[in-house]
């Protein structure tokens, strides 16, 4: 009965002390004080701006002894330096009568002067006729703060990660967009190319088809001279068509990287001389001069001789095509660092003609595919405008350069630069084999033994 009464009064917290007599109160007080000093939370009672009571927990929390705390003249050293200003302001506001939370967070400085102890304080006021003070409970929330701080840092890291990821996604998107644009552009180039190729293929085919059909339909109505003329048109247009097809295949091979270059050490002087010889007859036929001059007999580079021949032949064929009076001069010499940033020695092949020349505004475009100079007389010259484009691809492949200068009306000069490479010195073994002093098998086995 008594117990249940007590339990009831504990619940209400009102009547319990009143029901005790003085002796009970004294025992209860002792028990309360003992439990206060043992409780996990710090507890202090402040009277007249000094500690009147401190428990064990607050001592353990702050590192001060009970005597030290009770002897403190001011509480300032107890607070962490970062908190002191706020505590002071709070105090000033309180004595000026302002209302504020009785529960708040702040931080202590451990007696060692280093450790920060985050705490939550609850303040209760003691007001009786003869005693004035405050009871403060102090809970160490350092661990919670640390966890909060960790969470905050983790959140920050996550935020950074998110920002980084978003940036990555944006960068990737813009890369993809760029790649997509590039693909669309390439696709357009490809479809333009196909359209132009089909046009260029149909053109010679049209002449072939027309004259073949005309000859078939009007069989026997033409004299021999006319027949010869029509057949020779069919013949030359067929040649044009097959040249065009091999040019297109060349371009395709170069583009797809499938070309078999067959590179070897070649003497460029010889290759150019061979090309000049091939064309000499055609120049004589048109009443034009063709001269060849070289500053040396031997200038070596590593390249496919057929491809270099193709480039020179193309330049000579253009010179022949666009020159009516005068002729073409071919010149070879070695030059050092012919353009800014080039350190090597280059072989310079120049082909100068005294032809119609190329207007300034067209110079930059003549290496484009299917580009043909807009002839003032309107007649197109034979060819699809692929020769210079292929030549440029070939020379680019060999880390060379092809350039053009021109004065309309007086002629053009095309220059090809190819890096010069000295012939690698032959190894002694190879020389011995060449001289017949050693067989190939002997050389191989000797080299194997050596290694």
């Amino acid at each position: 009965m008594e117990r249940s009464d007590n339990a009831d009064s504990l619940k209400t917290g009102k009547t319990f002390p009143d029901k005790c007599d003085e002796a009970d109160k004294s025992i209860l007080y002792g028990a309360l004080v003992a439990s206060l000093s043992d409780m996990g939370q710090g507890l202090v009672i402040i009277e007249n701006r000094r500690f009147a009571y401190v428990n064990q927990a607050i001592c353990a929390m702050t590192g001060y002894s009970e005597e030290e705390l009770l002897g403190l003249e001011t509480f300032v050293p107890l607070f962490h330096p970062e908190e002191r200003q706020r505590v002071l302001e709070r105090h000033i506001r309180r004595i000026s009568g302002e209302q504020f939370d009785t529960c708040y967070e702040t931080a202590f400085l451990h007696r060692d002067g280093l450790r920060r102890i985050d705490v939550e304080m609850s303040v209760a006021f003691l007001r009786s006729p003869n005693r004035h003070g405050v009871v403060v409970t102090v809970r160490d929330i350092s661990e919670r703060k640390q966890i909060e701080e960790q969470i905050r840092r983790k959140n920050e890291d996550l935020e950074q990660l998110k920002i980084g990821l978003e940036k990555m996604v944006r960068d990737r998107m813009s890369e993809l967009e760029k790649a997509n644009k590039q693909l669309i552009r390439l696709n357009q180039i490809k479809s333009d190319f196909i359209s132009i190729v089909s046009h260029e293929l149909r053109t010679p085919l049209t002449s072939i088809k027309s004259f073949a059909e005309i000859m078939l339909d009007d069989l026997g109505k033409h004299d021999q001279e006319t027949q010869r003329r029509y057949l020779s048109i069919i013949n030359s247009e067929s040649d044009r068509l097959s040249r065009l097809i091999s040019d297109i295949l060349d371009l395709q091979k170069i583009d797809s990287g499938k070309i078999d270059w067959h590179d070897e050490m070649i003497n460029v002087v010889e290759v150019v001389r061979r090309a000049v010889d091939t064309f000499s007859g055609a120049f004589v036929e048109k009443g034009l001069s063709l001269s060849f001059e070289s500053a040396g007999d031997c200038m070596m580079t590593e390249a496919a001789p057929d491809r270099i021949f193709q480039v020179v032949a193309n330049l000579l064929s253009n010179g022949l095509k666009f020159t009516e009076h005068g002729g073409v001069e071919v010149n070879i010499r070695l030059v050092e660092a012919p353009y800014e940033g080039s350190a090597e020695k280059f072989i310079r092949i120049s082909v100068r003609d005294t032809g119609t020349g190329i207007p300034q505004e067209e110079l930059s475009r003549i290496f484009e595919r299917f580009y043909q100079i807009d002839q003032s007389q309107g007649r197109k010259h034979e060819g699809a405008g692929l020769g210079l484009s292929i030549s440029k691809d070939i020379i680019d492949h060999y880390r060379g350069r092809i350039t053009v200068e021109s004065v309309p009306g007086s002629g053009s000069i095309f220059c090809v630069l190819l890096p010069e490479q000295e012939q690698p010195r032959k190894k002694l073994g190879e020389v011995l084999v060449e001289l017949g002093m050693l067989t190939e098998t002997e050389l191989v086995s000797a080299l194997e033994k050596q290694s």
Partner: protein
Amino acid sequence: MKKKVLVCDDEPHIAESVAYIVDSLGCECLTAVNGEEALQYARDELPEVLVLDVRMPKMDGYAVCAQLKSDVATAGIRIIMLTAFGQRRDEEASEAAGADEFMAKPFSPRRLRIRLGELLGVAERIR
């Protein structure tokens, strides 16, 4: 007086084959080698028919066709477009420019002779 046909193509061999067809129909053949020249000759000579290539230096065939068709003085010239761009959209472009006929290259001279004959009102001579 012989009827006049203007042939405009920058490919000399193609122009020659068209000229052969024109001759075979008993007409006078004039030739131009670019768009500007074709426009000039068409205005000066007022041919019955113009056989016009599309891709040419200076001015393309569509532009020549559109200009001639939009001018009352030359709108009566019948125009046959010849092009090596043999796609549907090229036929549409030539229709849009007001051409009377569209033929893709390579064309059949036999068919060209028939169409030319029809446009000229010349009955094709039976061989």
